[in-house]
């Protein structure tokens, strides 16, 4: 039973070994040169003007959450759309209920002002 998973073990070992090789072989072959320019965030030479950890408005977070919800809705609709003929009116009714529930949620967040930007 457990021997069925032997290939998986080999795979894990191979992943680990490959990672080590990719990490340590190039510096060993090519050598390593340090310079101040290499420590800059952009090696293209653009001088960063502010810190990387900036604060974003909370609106981005809300928008991202909404995006995920409706993205998942779309993901559910795709397989349904492929099979809609086979599922018949039952499938249409099921999807209508699903979309209706999300519609209520959309009305809710709309009324709560989650879609207002910067007010």
């Amino acid at each position, binding site marked *: *039973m*457990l021997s069925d998973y032997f290939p998986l073990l080999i795979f894990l070992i191979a992943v680990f070994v490959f990672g080590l090789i990719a990490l340590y072989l190039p510096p060993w072959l090519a050598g390593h040169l340090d310079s101040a320019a290499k420590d800059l965030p952009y090696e293209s030479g653009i001088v960063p003007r502010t810190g990387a950890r900036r604060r974003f408005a909370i609106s981005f977070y809300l928008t991202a959450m909404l995006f995920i919800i409706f993205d998942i809705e779309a993901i559910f609709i795709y397989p349904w759309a492929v*099979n809609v*003929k*086979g*599922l*018949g009116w*039952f499938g249409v009714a099921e999807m209508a209920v699903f979309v209706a*529930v999300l519609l*209520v*949620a959309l*009305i*809710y967040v709309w*009324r*709560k002002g989650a879609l207002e930007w910067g007010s």
Partner: protein
Amino acid sequence: MTINISGIGIDYGAILPELVVAGTAIVVLFLELVVPPDRRRWLAAVTVIGLLGALVATIPLWGQNRSAFGDTVIADSLAVFFNVLLIAITIATVAISPRYLHALDLDYGEYYILILGATAGMMLLAAATSLMTIFLGIELLSISLYVLSGFARTTLRSQESALKYLLLGGFATGFLLYGMALIYGATGSTTLRGIAAFTTAASSNAAGNVLLLLGIGFLSVGLAFKASAAPFHMWTPDVYEGAPTIVTTFMSVATKSAAFAAVGRVFIATFPSISSRWYFPLALIAIFSLFIGNLVAITQDNIKRMLAYSGIAHAGYILLGVLPGTAQAFSATLFYIAAYSVMNFGAFAVVTAVAAGGEQNADLSHWRGLFYRRPFLATVMTIFMLSLAGIPPTVGFFAKLFVFQALVNAQIWAPLIVAVIMTIVSFYYYLRVIVIMLAAPDEVAVEKRPLGIPTSTVLGVAGLATVVLGIFPAVVLDWATRAASLHF
């Protein structure tokens, strides 16, 4: 191409109670937008009406054995037993909520939506007969409770408790899901029926299947976390203390009940053939819970933390009834869960009522002389404390008696001895609350607000039920026996 959907057993009647609860949540979500803020009590009323509708929908399912949606959920007496219990808990919670929420300035409609969402998840968990629906139920109840723990948005403790619960809960969910994946990998099925068929088949050698046993182990960790059994209990005191008391009241009884429904279905119904394998770890979890819960509760000076540790101890007692793996023992577990729900709900509801009455400090020292300030609250609290300790004639006595009886019948001695000794230890901290309430009061002027009819009624009914069921336990025991026996 026509897809045959008749074969997967679509049966909305079997999950009607869950649908009604979820539907009520959507209706309340909608109403929250149109109801003016000073009329938010209406939302509580709508919530209660929806829950009563779910109660009506669940009664006809009693005595049935309706597997639906491809063996993923079942409408049987066990599910009905838990549905009635959970709906009753939720109605009682919602009834005492408005006054408490108003006192803490938390009167938002979202509270009822989240409570309904958690209830729907718990009911689904109690009816789940597939790893997928178990997971769905647990997530639905957990996510609602994560938000509810942090519902007091301006209180740092509440935020901390929500974050702790979320992080540790997410970790436990990882265990749960990994366990499920391993069980699926070992047995090739996600439905409990399919898994049971695999483990009972002679050819499978399930007791020696490392993947399966590992999977069951991880699954136990996830479920023990939700039931707050030691050593997976670390989150319990902090979350119970930090969360708004009304939320603690709800989740300390409802989550535990639902989690044990899943424990029963998984261990007793699905893995009876390899009970020799899960018996020892489960016994160890029970003994740990009894030790840690009862011993640490002694040192607690905050009543919410004390009740949290007492809840851990009670998870141990409830788990004891699962150990023999028989219908008779499981009916004792069900009785214990029902008894625990009534008395622990009552105890936390008193804390809630005291907070709603203007005393939001849950330190035991602030409860000095409660008998003189609030005689009714102190009296019902005394009943609940005596019942939690297991002193007759309260329901807590019979709950412990039935579980111990089941252990004697099954010749399980070591956990029984621990349980009996720990019960005696528990007398100390339960009786201490009564002594403190009776002590002469400090001369502090406390702003006193009336309790209101719903809170008094809920507390009165809970107190009465604790005593009446302690004198006539047969009714509930009969239901519990029938719910447990149909299960096999």
